[in-house]
């Protein structure tokens, strides 16, 4: 872990992040109106994941945290994704 340096994020950064999130939320709402059939769920999930990533990076300060924490977050999410995939290896092929 790097020595703790106090990171102070200006209010304006947070404001810009919020605007970005609201834009993505708007897309999320509009997506069902655009008939993308089977891909709609995937796009919705991708949009949600992007928003989640932005919240974690900026609001939860992952951007300025030490690398161990960033690695842990990624590893945990990968493990979770693998568990879902493995469970679906049952349900998809039944």
């Amino acid at each position: 872990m790097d020595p703790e340096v106090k990171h102070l994020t200006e209010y304006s950064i947070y404001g810009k992040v919020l605007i970005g999130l609201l834009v993505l939320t708007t897309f999320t709402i509009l997506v069902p109106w655009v008939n993308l059939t089977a891909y709609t769920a995937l796009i919705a999930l991708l949009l949600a994941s992007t928003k989640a990533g932005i919240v974690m990076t900026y609001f939860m300060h992952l951007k300025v945290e030490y690398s161990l924490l960033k690695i842990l977050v990624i590893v945990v999410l990968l493990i979770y994704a693998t568990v879902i995939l493995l469970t679906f290896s049952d349900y998809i092929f039944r």
Partner: protein
Amino acid sequence: MNKILIRIKKSELEMISMDHIEMQRDDIGAKLGMWIFIFTEILLFGGLFLVYAVMRHRYSADFHQASLQLNSFIGALNTVVLLISSMTVAMSISAVQKKDKRMATILLCITLLCAVIFLVDKYFEWGHKISILLYPGTELMQSLKHGYILFFSLYFFMTGLHMLHLIIGAIVLLVALVKVRMGLINEDHYVLLENGGLYWHLVDLIWIFLFPLLYLVT
């Protein structure tokens, strides 16, 4: 790996009791502990999302029909409200770092107000469903198609568990607000606010996924 332990001023040291060892303050450790706790919450909701994924895979058409019963406007409003509250709680940390107690107070109050708005919205949403007997366990529910039953069970379970976490998060932030007012959270000592903020962002993250998965099913 270098560890920086922030030494507390001698005047703030507690009496060393021989019942336990006086521990030096470790903000990095406290935050790491909070992040690990957040991982456990992700896995907790993860189990529910797994059930959702399996059931939606099995009953995709029914899920779409059932989700039309939900009020997407309120869902979207709640999403916006939580995003704003995440911003304000993050800003409140900057305010504390800037020694701006007034701004920190205002921001935390807005955060808590957002929590209240969310809960009020949920009260109306759930209240409506309950008034028409559309909740798990009723005869009406049991008479519906399987996909509908499972959708509504998931809806109530997931939003209910989320609401519980929201209330806990709000209480933590309320405590943080009190401590900010009392000066116990200040520019040298704000890890409690950071950790409370992290927990609050988790509540936001869960909703970011719940919203499209429950309200915008196609």
